[in-house]
C-alpha cells in the first residue's frame, strides 16, 4: 500500500477517455454525447437546500429523457468533502475510476483543486452552450475569485450578498457598512454574521474590508504582495467595535447562513444577509419567515460571485459530466433555475446572445414584495483573490477564538 | 425399555488443581439405585458431572465409565445414553407439556403424539398435553420431567437431589414414583443427595464421601 502511495507522488498525467478532448467542433460534440449515453454522473453538490436538490432532480429527469444520462446527486454538507474525496483517491493511486464526476464549486475550493491538479480540463470551450454566456463581455463567467478559470470549470449561476429584514420590526434598515455599526449599537443583540470559516461569514468580512479599506485594490492580488496587518486594520477596528453589540454579545455566532436565517425565523435577529438573493422570498413561501420580510443591497454594491461546476481529473464519466454541464447552460435549464418557484438562482447567460424564443423563457417574475426590486443587483463588487479568504479566516480565528 | 443395563465406574480418580478429590470403583446393576451422600465440597456433583459428560475443565479425571461394557468415557453427553434429573424440573418454558415430552424422544419414535399422550396418562396428567408448563404445580412439573426422561429411553440415569425442592408431603410420593419407574425400566441409577430419607426410599447401597 505504501509503495502505491509513493508511486502516486510523481506528477500525474491526465488519463482521458478517447474522444472527450478533441477539438471543439459540432461533430465532436456529437461524439461526446454518444459516449455519454448510458452513463451515470455522480454530482457532488451541497445538499442543504431542498429546493436546490429538487432542481437537480429535475436536471436528472431531463438528462435521462434527452440524452440517456443519469444524474445522481451526492448530497454534501460541505463542498470540501468532495475535494477531500478526490484527494484521497489521488493519494491512493486511483487515476481513472474516481467516485466524483461533477462538483458544484467555486472560490477557494476551486483554487485548492487547481493547485493540487485535481481537475479535468480545459473543457468549457467545447460546450456548445458556453458561448451563450458571452465571456468576452462578461469576464465574471471565466473568473473565479480573481483566478482565471482557464476552462477548468463551467459557470452555472450567480450569487450576491443580499440583506433582509422584517419590515414590521425594522422599517428603516441601515444602508451601508458604517450605518450597520450604528444600527447594531442602537439595537444590541439583533444582528450577527456566520462564524468564520463559514463561506457566508467570510464574505461578510470581505464586504466590510472592501467598504472600509483605504486600498481595496490590494485585495485583488495575492495577499503575500501586501502588508496584511496594514490593509486589514480598519476591518479589525470595525469588528472590535461591532462584536459587543452582536447577538450573544459576539461570544457565539451561527454556524452558517441558513442557521442565521433560522435565527431570523425565531425572532432572535432583526437583520441578516444571504448569498442567494431569492432566499428570503423562498423562506417566506416555506413559512419560515414572516410575509413582512424585505430584501435590499447595501449602497455602493455588495460582493457577488459566480458558482461553477467542475469535473475531477479521475472521473470515469467525463463525457456524461460534460453533457450535464452543457445542459445546465441551456436557456431552458437556466430559466427554470431562475424561476422563484423553483430555486431563484440567477442566470449566467447573456440575454443579448439568446434568440427570441429562448429569451421568452426568462419572463420577468411576478411582483414579490420579499424579493429585491428589479435592477437592485446592478452594482456587484468582485471577489478578492482567494488567498485573502484564508488569511482573513486565520486572522479572525486567532483574534476571536478561545478568548 | 425392557432391556436391562448396567453401569461400571472403573478406577475413577478426580483431582482438583492436582489435589485428589475423590476416587471410586463400582458397578451399578440393572434397576439398582446407588446413593452417593456427602457434605458439599465432597465431590458428589463433580462425580455426577463427570458421568454426564459436563465436567468443568478445572478438574482432571482418570478412569473409565462403561455402559453395558461399552466405554463411554470420551463420548459427548448427547451420545452417552445417560439421562439426568435436576433439583428443578427444568421443563422448557417455550414448549408445551407434550412438546417437552416429544423433545426428548428418539428420532425414530413412531407416533410421538401418541407416546406423549400415553406417558402423561401414566403419571396421571392425561389432559395436560397442551398446557403451558409454567401453569403446572411443582409436583406436576416434576412428574412431567420424569416422564420426559423415561421417554427419551436412557440406558442409565443420574439424579441430582431431585426431591429437595418439593414440599415434604409430596416428596415421599414422588420418590415412590421415580424409583418405581426406574426400577421397572431396569435402569442403573446414581442418586446424589444429602437427605437420608432419599437414601432409605431408594433402598440400594449408600456411598458416603468425605469432605
Amino acid at each position: 500500500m505504501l509503495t502505491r502511495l509513493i508511486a502516486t507522488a510523481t506528477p500525474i498525467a491526465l488519463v482521458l477517455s478517447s474522444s472527450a478532448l478533441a477539438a471543439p467542433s459540432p461533430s465532436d460534440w456529437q461524439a461526446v454525447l454518444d459516449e455519454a449515453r448510458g452513463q451515470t454522473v455522480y454530482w457532488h453538490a451541497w445538499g442543504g437546500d431542498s429546493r436546490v436538490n429538487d432542481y437537480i432532480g429535475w436536471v436528472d429527469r431531463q438528462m435521462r429523457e434527452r440524452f440517456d444520462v443519469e444524474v445522481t446527486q451526492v448530497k454534501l454538507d460541505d463542498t470540501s468533502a468532495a475535494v477531500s474525496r478526490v484527494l484521497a483517491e489521488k493519494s491512493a493511486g486511483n487515476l481513472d475510476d474516481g467516485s466524483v464526476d461533477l462538483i458544484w464549486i467555486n472560490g477557494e475550493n476551486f483554487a485548492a483543486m487547481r493547485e493540487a491538479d485535481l481537475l479535468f480540463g480545459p473543457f468549457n470551450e467545447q460546450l456548445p452552450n458556453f458561448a451563450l454566456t458571452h465571456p468576452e463581455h462578461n469576464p465574471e463567467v471565466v473568473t473565479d475569485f480573481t483566478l482565471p478559470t482557464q476552462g477548468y470549470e463551467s459557470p452555472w449561476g450567480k450569487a450576491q450578498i443580499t440583506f433582509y429584514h422584517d419590515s414590521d420590526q425594522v422599517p428603516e434598515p441601515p444602508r451601508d457598512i458604517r450605518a450597520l455599526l450604528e444600527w447594531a449599537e442602537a439595537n444590541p443583540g439583533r444582528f450577527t454574521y456566520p462564524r468564520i470559516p463559514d463561506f457566508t461569514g467570510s464574505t461578510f468580512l470581505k464586504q466590510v474590508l472592501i467598504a472600509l479599506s483605504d486600498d481595496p485594490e490590494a485585495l485583488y492580488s495575492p495577499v503575500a504582495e501586501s502588508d496584511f496587518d496594514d490593509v486589514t486594520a480598519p476591518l479589525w477596528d470595525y469588528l472590535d467595535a461591532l462584536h459587543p453589540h452582536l447577538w450573544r454579545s459576539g461570544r457565539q455566532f451561527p454556524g452558517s447562513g441558513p442557521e442565521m436565517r433560522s435565527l431570523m425565523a425565531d425572532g432572535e435577529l432583526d437583520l441578516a444577509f444571504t448569498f442567494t438573493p431569492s432566499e428570503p422570498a423562498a423562506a417566506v413561501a416555506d413559512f419560515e419567515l414572516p410575509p413582512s420580510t424585505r430584501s435590499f443591497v447595501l449602497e455602493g454594491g455588495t460582493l457577488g460571485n459566480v458558482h461553477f461546476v467542475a469535473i475531477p481529473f479521475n472521473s470515469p464519466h467525463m463525457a456524461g459530466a460534460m453533457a450535464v454541464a452543457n445542459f445546465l447552460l441551456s436557456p431552458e435549464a437556466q430559466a427554470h433555475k431562475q424561476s422563484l418557484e423553483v430555486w431563484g438562482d440567477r442566470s449566467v447567460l447573456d440575454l443579448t446572445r439568446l434568440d427570441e424564443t429562448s429569451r421568452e423563457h426568462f419572463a420577468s417574475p411576478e411582483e414579490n414584495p420579499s424579493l429585491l426590486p428589479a435592477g437592485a443587483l446592478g452594482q456587484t463588487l468582485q471577489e478578492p483573490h482567494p488567498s485573502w479568504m484564508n488569511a482573513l479566516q486565520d486572522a479572525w480565528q486567532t483574534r476571536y477564538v478561545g478568548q | 425399555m425392557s432391556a436391562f443395563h448396567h453401569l461400571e465406574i472403573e478406577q475413577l480418580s478426580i483431582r482438583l488443581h492436582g489435589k485428589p478429590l475423590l476416587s471410586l470403583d463400582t458397578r451399578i446393576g440393572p434397576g439398582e439405585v446407588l446413593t452417593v451422600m456427602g457434605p458439599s465440597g465432597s465431590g458428589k456433583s463433580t462425580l455426577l458431572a463427570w458421568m454426564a459428560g459436563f465436567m468443568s475443565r478445572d478438574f482432571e479425571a482418570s478412569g473409565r465409565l462403561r455402559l453395558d461394557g461399552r466405554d463411554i468415557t470420551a463420548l459427548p453427553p448427547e451420545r452417552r445414553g445417560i439421562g439426568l434429573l435436576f433439583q428443578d424440573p427444568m421443563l422448557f418454558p417455550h414448549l408445551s407439556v407434550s412438546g417437552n415430552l416429544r423433545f426428548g424422544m428418539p428420532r425414530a419414535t413412531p407416533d410421538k403424539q401418541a407416546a406423549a399422550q400415553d406417558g402423561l396418562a401414566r403419571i396421571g396428567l392425561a389432559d395436560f398435553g397442551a398446557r403451558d408448563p409454567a401453569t403446572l404445580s411443582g409436583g406436576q412439573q416434576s412428574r412431567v420431567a420424569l416422564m420426559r426422561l423415561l421417554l427419551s429411553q436412557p440406558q442409565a440415569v443420574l439424579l441430582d437431589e431431585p426431591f429437595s425442592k418439593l414440599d415434604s408431603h409430596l416428596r415421599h410420593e414422588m420418590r415412590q414414583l421415580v424409583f418405581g419407574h426406574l426400577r421397572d425400566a431396569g435402569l442403573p441409577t446414581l442418586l446424589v443427595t444429602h437427605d437420608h430419607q432419599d437414601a432409605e426410599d431408594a433402598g440400594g447401597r449408600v456411598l458416603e464421601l468425605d469432605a
Partner: protein
Amino acid sequence: MPRMPLGLVPPLIVLLLVGPLLAGLIMALLPAFGYLPALGGESFSLAPWRALFDQPGIWRSAMLSLASGLVTTAVSLGIVLLFLASVSGTWLDKLIQRLVSPLLALPHAAAAFGLAFLIAPSGLLARLASPGLTGWERPPDLLIVQDPWGLSLMAGLIIKEIPFLLLMSLAALPQIEPARRVAMARSLGYRPTVAWLKVVVPALYPLIRLPVLAVIAFASSVVDVAMILGPTLPPTLAVSILTWFGDPDLSRRFMASAGAILQLGVTLAALLAWWGLECLVRRLGRRWIERGGRRAGDAPLRLAGKSLILLATLSAFVGLGGLALTSVAGFWRFPSALPDSLTWLHWQRALPSLGGPVLSSTIIAVVATLIATLLAVAALEKEQRRGRTASRALWLLYLPLIVPQVAFLFGLAVVTESLGVTPTHGLVIFGHLLFVLPYVFLSLSEAYRRLDPRWSQVALSLGVTRGSTFRRVRLPMLLAPLLTAMAVGMAVSIGQYLPTQLLGAGRISTVTTEAVALASGGNRRVIGVWAMLQACLPLAGFVMAVGLPRLIWSHRRGMQGSP
C-alpha cells in the same frame, strides 16, 4: 453448527475489527508526522504538530473534549445508579423504565436537535413560559445552546447515555441477586436506597465497567451532538478535526491527522482519569460503607434518583415532540406556544426523495446487524461449549468503542481507496459492522452467559445433539435478548454518519446522511422531518424486538419475564 468454523469465529471477529482499525490509525499517524506523498509530504517532520498547537484555542478544545467525556459519564452513571437504587416496583418506576428503553434507539443527532429546540432562548420552553411568566416578547439574548462550557453538549449526551447505561445495568443485575443483598442489608437496619447503594453498587459496577468506558470514549470524541449543541469558539476537538479534514486548503490535512492522534490521546487521558477516579471513589466509598450509616439521606436520594431520570427522559420526549410539531408548522413567531398554522408541505417535499435513503438505511442496518448477530452468537456459543471462560482476544472486540471514530476513519477511507475497493453498500456495511458488532455483543453476552447451563445439559442428556440443542433450546429461550441486541445493532447502524459518508464515497445516502446534509440548510422544519424519520426507523426495530417475543410467547408464561 459444525465445529470447525465455530473455532475460527473469535479470530475472525478480531481480524475483522482490529485490522481496519489499526490500518486506519496508521494512515492517520503517518500524515500526523508529515508523511503523505500525494500531498507532497515525503519526509517525516513535526510541522503538523507545531501547526496544531498553534491553532487558536486548541487546548481549550482538548480540555472541553476531556471534560465532556468525564462529566457526561459521571452524571449519567450517577443518575442511573440513583434511579436503580430508588426502584421499588411502583407504577412510576415501571413507567420510567418503559419510557427510557426506546430512547436507546433514538439517534444522537435527533435527540440533540430536540434538546436544542427545547432549551434555546427561542425554544419550546421559552415559548411556553412567554410572555406570561417571563414577559419576553422577543427571545432573550441568552447563551444557552452551544455555551462555551459545553453544558448543553453534556446535557444532550447525558440524555442519550442514561438509557444505554440503564439497560446495560438491568441486563447485568440478575447475576448479583440485588433483592437478596438488599433484603440482607435491610435486616441489618439499612433503608432500602442506602442499602442498594452500599451492597449492590460495589458488585454491579465491575459488570458495567466496559459500557461505562465506552461512554467516556464516545462522549469525549462525539461529532454530531457536538456540532449541534457543543461550543463553537473553539468547538470540541473532534469537531475541529472534522473541519480541518474538510478544509479546502489541502495542506491542513497533515494538521488534521495530528489532531486525530491528539484526539486519541485525549480519549485515553479521559479513560485514565476515570481510572484514577475509580480508585478514589473505591477508597472513599469503602469508608462510607463501613461507617455504617443506615438511614441518613434515604428519602432525598430516592427523590433525586427518580426526578433526575424523569427530567432527562421527559426532555428527550418533549424535544422530540417539538421537532414533530416543527415538521408540520406553518409560520411560528415567537412567543407563540403553537404554530400559527399547520402544513404538510415539508413532508410532501421530502416524500419523493424518501424511498432511496430509507431503503438504503434499512438494507445496511439489517445486513450489518444480521452479520454481527451471527458472529456474536457463534462466538458466545463457542464459549459456552468450551466451558465458561471468555476468550481473552474478544476484549479486542470493544476496541472500536474505545478508539474515537475521527481518529481512524479518515485513514481507513484512504486504505480502502488504495486497495481499490469501490464504494458500495458492501463496504459501508463492513464499516458499520465495526460499530454494530461490539454493541450487539455487549447487549447479548450477558443474557447468553447467564442462561442456566442446565438447560442445555438437560437437552443433551435427553440425547439431542448440540446443534439441535442450540436451535431448539438456547435460540428460542434467548429470542427476546437476541431481538433486543439486534434492535440495538440496527439503531447503531442507522445513526452512523462518518462511516457511511467516508466509506460510501457519499454515494450511499441513508436517512442519517440525508438528515445531516439537510441540517446544513438550517431549515428547522426540514430538519424536523428528517429527524423524525431518523428516529422512527430504529424505533420500529425496537417495537418489533419488544413485541415479537410477547406475541410468539403469548401462551408461555415462563417466557414472559425473560431478560
